[in-house]
Structure formats: C-alpha cells, structure tokens
C-alpha cells in the first residue's frame, strides 16, 4: 500500500427520507482505497452495500461527509458535474450487463467515448482495442443477443475499460452468470488488476470476494471489518 489513495471517504452518511420516516443507510464510512488496489465490498442485502456503491460510483450524493475521487471532492457536485466524473473516472460493470440490444458490441463499447466527445474516427479503434483486451476481438460486430452471458459481461468490462478510468466499479458482476462464466469474468478482473487497475467489487458471495486483496464488510451502514485476504500482497 505505497500508492496514493485514489478514493478517500471521510464520515460518509446517507439518510433516506420518506415522509416522516428517516432511514440511515450509511452511518459514517471512513476508508481509503489506493491506486491499483482490488477491493471487495461484501455485505448482505440491506446492509448499505448498494448505497455505498451508488456513492462510490457518483450516482448519488452522500448526505454528509466527503468523497475525494482522484483528489477531487465529488460529494456535493451537481448531476451534470457527476456525469462528467462518471464518464472520465469510473468504469461500471453491472449485474444485468446493461448492454443496448440494438447496438453491436463495439457500438456498445464506444458509448462512453461518445459522451466524452472523442471524435468518431478514434472511437471505433479504441472500442476494438478494448474488446481485444477482453478477448473478444473476433466479436466486435455481434449484437449482445448473439453472445453468451459471459461474453456479454466481457463486452461490459470492455466498455468499462475503454475510457481508461481511475476505478472499475463492478456491482455483482457474476450474479447472473453460471460458474464457468463466473470464473471467466473473475479471471478477467484478475488480469486487469495485474495490469494496475483499481477495482472495487461489490458482492455478497465470499468465494468471489476472496479473489480481491482486501475485503470491506458492511453491516447496518457501517464497515464492520476491513481485512486483507489470502491474496493480499500477492504480486501478480
């Protein structure tokens, strides 16, 4: 852990209000994640795990506290500013893949580049390179419907990579996959980690969490344990 922290969370609280009922989803989260780290956030449903993921992914503002992402305080940004941060700094991998069915693989991968204002000519080259990176160099023109679940998630990973983000945020990336595809996608995340990417993995499966270097366990909106796994310190 010699690198600079890429994520600094200080006293993050999130309160949801519904009429007169208040619900504290996060009750003060403090943690740092260093560049190049592979962290798994684990917890049962209702633990605040998803809320934390939304805040880490800049999809939502915390009610209190500060979130520095790559040195920039994103905790009170407007939706438009957050959109730009998501576009530049974060690569999302979702449980549902969330690929657009009408677009071919490379067109799906180029989406973040469109919003980043990358010229059309460069986009295809970069999208194809990202697809080659995840081993789908021969599937660039296939639509999601023509790909297996594992392949679709690989396309999603390629889309997360294509903007060279500071962090890849994977929300239950293997939740919808069979064991073989799960191994496939986790293998890919290992590779990305090995090449120096910062990865935050949200999961409720311990076997999956074991693949990371460090496990953050969430319960009742607080971090109850923050432990290195067997793989911590393994230099791949």
């Amino acid at each position, binding site marked *: 852990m010699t690198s600079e922290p890429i994520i600094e969370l200080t006293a993050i609280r999130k309160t949801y209000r519904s009429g007169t009922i208040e619900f504290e989803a996060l009750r003060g989260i403090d943690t740092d994640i260093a560049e190049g780290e592979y962290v798994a956030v684990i917890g049962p449903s209702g633990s605040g795990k998803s809320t934390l993921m939304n805040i880490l992914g800049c*999809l939502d503002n915390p009610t209190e506290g500060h979130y520095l992402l790559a040195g920039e305080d994103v905790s009170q940004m407007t939706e438009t500013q957050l*959109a730009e941060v998501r576009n530049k700094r974060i690569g999302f991998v*979702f449980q549902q893949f969330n690929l657009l069915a*009408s677009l071919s693989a490379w067109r799906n991968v180029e989406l973040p580049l469109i919003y*980043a*204002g990358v010229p*059309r000519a460069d986009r295809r080259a970069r999208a194809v390179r990202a697809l080659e990176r995840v081993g789908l160099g021969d599937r660039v023109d296939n639509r999601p419907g023509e790909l297996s679940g594992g392949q679709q998630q690989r396309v999603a990973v390629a889309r997360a990579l294509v903007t060279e983000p500071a962090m890849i945020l994977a929300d239950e990336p293997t939740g919808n996959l069979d064991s073989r595809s799960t191994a496939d996608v986790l293998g890919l995340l290992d590779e990305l980690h090995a090449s120096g990417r910062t990865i935050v993995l949200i999961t409720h499966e311990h076997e999956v969490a074991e693949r990371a270097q460090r496990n953050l366990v969430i319960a009742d909106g607080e971090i109850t344990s923050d432990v290195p796994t067997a793989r911590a310190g393994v230099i791949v």
Partner: protein
Amino acid sequence: MNWLETVRAGAEAVRAHRMRSILTMLGIVIGIASVILTVGFGQGAQKEVKDEIDALGSNLLIVSPGSTTDSSGVRGGFGSATTLTLDDASAIGEDSVVPDAEKVAATTSTNAAVAAGETNWTTSVVGTTPSWLDVRTRTLEAGRFFTAEELAKGADVVVLGPDTASELFTGPTAANPVGQTVSIGGRQLTVIGVLDSSGASSTGTSEDDQAVVPISTAKSLTGSTDNAVSTIYVEATSADTLSAAYQEVQSLLLTRHGVAASDADFSISTQDSLVETANSTNETLTVLLTGVAAISLLVGGVGVMNIMLVSVTERIREIGLRKALGATPSVIGRQFLVEASMLGLAGGIAGVLIGVVGSWVLPSIIDQPVTLSAFATGAALATSLALGVGFGVYPASRAARLTPIDALRSE
C-alpha cells in the same frame, strides 16, 4: 456529444422501432397532407373564379338593380327590383355625363324555349344593344351582330351562342346556321350570326349557351311594356379610368333615381369586387377546412408526445445506463427532443409528398383544380417540426430528470 451525433442517434432510435415510428407519424402525415390539399383546393377555386371573371371583359362595370327601400324603410335584396331602365342606360351612354364610359350595353334576360324545325332547346334569351359585343369582348364565329337599325325597329333577328347553335342545328344545316330560322314564343327569327366560344372555363355558366336578340325584340317577345333592364354593362375608356367611371355612373344614377347614396336602389360591381366576393366565400371555406386539418395536426402532435412518453418509460434502463456512462441530463433531454422532432419532420415530409401527389391525382378524379402553394408547403413543414419539438419537450424533460440509480434499478 454534438448535434450531429445526437441526430444520428435519433435516426437510429426512430429506425429501431420502425413500425411504431410510422404509426406515430401517421397523424402528422394526414394532418400535413390535408392542410396542403385544402389550401390547394381553396387557391385552385379562387384562381378558377378569377379566370372566369377576367373573361367577362376588362374595364367593366356591372350595374345591377336591387336594394330598394320602400316608404316603410324595408330594404329589398339584391336584384329584387327592376329599378334600372333603358333610359338609365342611354343616360350613361351620354359622353357629357359620363365621359369615362366608352360603351354601354343594357341587357334583359329571360329563359325561353327556342325551336328550329323539330328541335327544341331552352336557353337564356338575352335582349341587348349592338354595343354588347364589344362590351362583353365577344367575337363572332359566323355571320354578323345586329345593327342599331335592327334594334330601333325590333327586327326579327337572333345571334346564337355556339353551344345553342350546335344544340339546335344537328342536320345538314349544322355547318352554317346563319340564314336559318328559329322560333321563340311562336315568333320566327332569322339567325344572323353565331358567337365564338367565350373561352371561360366550363363551370355551367351560360356564356356559350344563349340567344342574343335586340332588346326591343326581347321586350315584345316577353310581352313586357316597361323598359326595365336586368343589367347594364359599362365599359370604361381604360383600366385607369375605371374608378372615375364608377363615380360618374353612381352619381348619375343616384340623381336620376332621386335617392341618397345610403338608399341606392342599384349596385355597381367591378371585376375586382366580384373576385373579392367570390374569394371571400372560398376563403371562409378554406379557413374552415384548414382549421379541421390543423386540429388533426394537433392530434398528431399529441400522438408524438404519447409515444415519446411511452418510449421514455420503455427505455428507462437505457437512459440510466447512458447517464451512468456519462450522459448529462441535457444530453439525454436533447436526444429525446431530437427524436421527437425527427418524427415530426419525417411525418411532415411524408405529408407533403402525399399532398403533392394528391394535387396531381385529385383534379382528374373530382374535377376541381388544386393549386399547390409553396408557402403552405413550407409552413406545413415548419409546423410539423415545431409539433415534434413542442410535444417532445415534456417527454424529453422527463427523461432528462430521471436519476441514474432509479433508471438503472427499474425492471
């Protein structure tokens, strides 16, 4: 994401749901096509009326009797009275009184059966003066018109319209009816001439179907002893003197009839005023029809809004994903707005095409001229685009306001 990209993405979305896009556009297509066609009909009808009235002859004032006010103040309608007389006509003909009138022709008109041998034909029998030919800018196909002399003695002569001649003379005499005899009301008249066709379009007017006789002859045919006339045609010396002639004729007749201008028992119309009257009727109809078409356009616009709202709901995950990947609210809003505008504009273009094709095809089916108006076409296209934009704003802002988490999480 620049505008070009947005337009490209919009076109893709419209194409991706082809059937639905077509159905959405249908309302606008129908609305635009009907606006173009109704405006085309209105303009076609106006042009037709104008052509007809132009064919009446230039520099023409048409004096008609009417609008009498009796002692109790009851006003009669147009043409309800026989207030114009031959004397009025000859007074107008006096150069010293109406210097700007070139020629005057008084006419009476009645329907009567004309017989030639075994053939009978009921037509309009017009009694008039020799100047009628010039005033109405007519020419003769054969023979001659009657003279002042024949007028003076009420000669038994008649000039037939070309249609009347061909109806009456079908046998060996068809080639030249001049010199033949026809009978009107038991009186034998010699055909001395046949008119050329007036050239006005065939809309059931009797310009080519009439029998023209000296007005004195007409009076004795109908057994009438008064000297009332139904219309006095006055030809001004030129188009520039038309309004001067109008003033002169008006003040002359007011003086002769001893009435104030507000109680005038005659009316004078010019070609322009006739065109105006005819057009105002047409315009009312056109405005009415265009109103109906505009309502259908509005309904089409609501259809676009409805489908765009459905589209926002249906693509809520797509919106969430695009936002997660970095699309700002304004980019998403713009995308949906552009999609709605494209639906509107595409519907408008299709509507214009149908309107143009319709304006070629319809006249041959319903015998009504349709004049395409470039202005109406341009306005229709602009309207269709405006409808798309206008009715796209609400769905677009709904899409823009969705928060990415809610959008991503929805199933």
